């Protein structure tokens, strides 16, 4: 009998409960990710069955005719994100060199790095609001000067806002990898009489190339999924974008615009399928970025 009691006591001891609680919540976290995929997959089944692979290449998005193709949004997402990443790359590499090589300590570097951190803290809806009322008129002026249709809103404006939003992320990754460059090879180069520029060009940049690439991937992952700021300035046109100054839509912005009002099973399911595609793309890109960084720092 006492053996049975021991077993029961062990089963209900605080120790046992605590260990199980730890394990349970860890498993729940993992389950959350699996549930995410499964839910989106189940909900998008009607649209997957109806359109198949044509969903990705379809150019028309017409809820009235029940015709759904995601190509305009995939194109919009890729266009805005890539332009944003290219703009952000220039600035974030400059910031990383500034903070990692020229001004490692001191008031100047504290000022710049805390400013950049604040930039990361501003909510995306405020970026969108500011963009809509301050940046759009500026872009419109520029477009009038260059004789382009003066929408103001559009893919170019969205890319500029996005690039401002992702600079902090790519800059912080780039800065981290620049500090990983071994001091002795830098010192060796200086002792040979190399200038700062030459050390950066020939020692630091080749050393951190893959790390900067990882930073770009992580920034790209953020840019792809960014919703509010883009939705507010991109112009929301469901047609394939003709040029970068015209209005468009991204995968995230079409969901933001239409999901609450979507009626009909197929309509909702098509929007969920877009979400599923977006999820898969961002997770692959994020994982690739994290993998490269982990490999570098070991």
């Amino acid at each position: 009998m006492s053996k049975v009691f021991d077993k029961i006591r062990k089963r209900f001891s605080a120790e046992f409960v605590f260990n199980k609680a730890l394990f349970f919540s860890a498993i729940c976290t993992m389950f959350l990710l699996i549930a995410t995929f499964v839910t989106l997959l189940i909900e998008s089944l009607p649209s997957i069955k109806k359109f198949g692979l044509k969903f990705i290449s379809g150019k028309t998005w017409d809820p009235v005719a029940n015709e759904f193709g995601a190509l305009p949004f995939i194109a919009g997402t890729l266009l805005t994100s890539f332009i944003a990443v290219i703009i952000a790359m220039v600035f974030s590499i400059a910031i990383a060199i500034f903070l990692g090589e020229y001004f490692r300590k001191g008031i100047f570097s504290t000022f710049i790095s805390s400013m950049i951190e604040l930039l990361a803290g501003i909510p995306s809806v405020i970026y969108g609001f500011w963009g809509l009322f301050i940046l759009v008129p500026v872009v419109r002026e520029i477009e009038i000067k260059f004789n382009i249709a003066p929408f103001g809103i559009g893919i170019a404006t969205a890319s500029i806002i996005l690039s401002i939003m992702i600079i902090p992320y790519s800059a912080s990754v780039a800065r981290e990898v620049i500090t990983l460059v071994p001091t002795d090879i830098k010192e060796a180069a200086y002792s040979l009489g190399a200038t700062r520029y030459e050390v950066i060009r020939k020692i630091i940049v080749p050393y951190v190339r893959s790390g900067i690439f990882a930073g770009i991937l992580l920034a790209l992952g953020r840019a792809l999924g960014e919703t509010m700021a883009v939705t507010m300035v991109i112009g929301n046109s469901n047609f394939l974008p003709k040029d970068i100054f015209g209005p468009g839509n991204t995968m995230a912005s079409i969901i933001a615009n239409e999901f609450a009002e979507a009626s009909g099973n197929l309509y909702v399911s098509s929007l969920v399928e877009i979400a599923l595609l977006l999820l898969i793309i961002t997770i692959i890109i994020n994982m690739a970025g994290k993998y490269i960084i982990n490999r570098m720092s070991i």
Partner: protein
Amino acid sequence: MNDAKPTIRILKDHIFKSFIIALSLVAILPLLFILFYIIRNGISFISWQFITNLPRPVGETGGGISNAIIGTFILISIACILSIPFGILTGIYLAENKKGKFSYFISLSVDALQGIPSIVIGILAYIWIVKPIGRFSALSGGVALGIMMLPVIVKTTEETLILIPDSLKEASLALGVPYYKTILKIILPSGLSGITTGILLSVSRIAGETAPLLFTAFGNPFMSCNIFQPIHSLPLLIFTYAISPYEEWHALAWGASLILIGIVLTLNIISKIVIKKWKVQF
């Protein structure tokens, strides 16, 4: 390296340096612009009445945003209640079982969770909660925000607890303290500053989040504290007012932006101070 022309090399060096400094300064200009415009357009709105009154229809002056402020706090509280216990427990698990069978997969899924776009999380909360209940609700918004907080809390808890030396734990165990008491009374309090920072950072991240609330919390022009009813929040209010055609609503949105930015940046700065003052050091 060409010895014949040292001046050209030095010139290049100078040009490069000024280039880097110029680009870095240009990159922070948008921040200054954003802060400048929001403070300039929003400061005249900040008054006791703006914070305590309900919004009025277009045409009537003197509306406030009290329902959005209360709503934001309710949404954040729901998110915290859901995600903090799970986040901390998962963080402890990962820190304690570094080489465990599941740890690798769990930290992989935490990384993946962190990368999920917020709008996708909104859709999840819609499918899981709004659809079964049959209406938009504060609860579904809180769940969406909680899912967004979770990975940040797990990561910061894990990173903080890894820094705490094993000797501390060994000393406690050697005195005969049970394992769970060692974790709860020795390890967790030692890492409290890191965990607090993680929570503050994740709250400041979700406080301004709008996308998942569009079709979960949905917004509500009246005061509501019922978690099964739609609820308003500051970012949502800024969005709806900003894209409305009315001048007065745009002006209200600037005021609301100033309050939201104030909340978010204050949380950010507090978490900085917490890191600096009570950093885990051994």
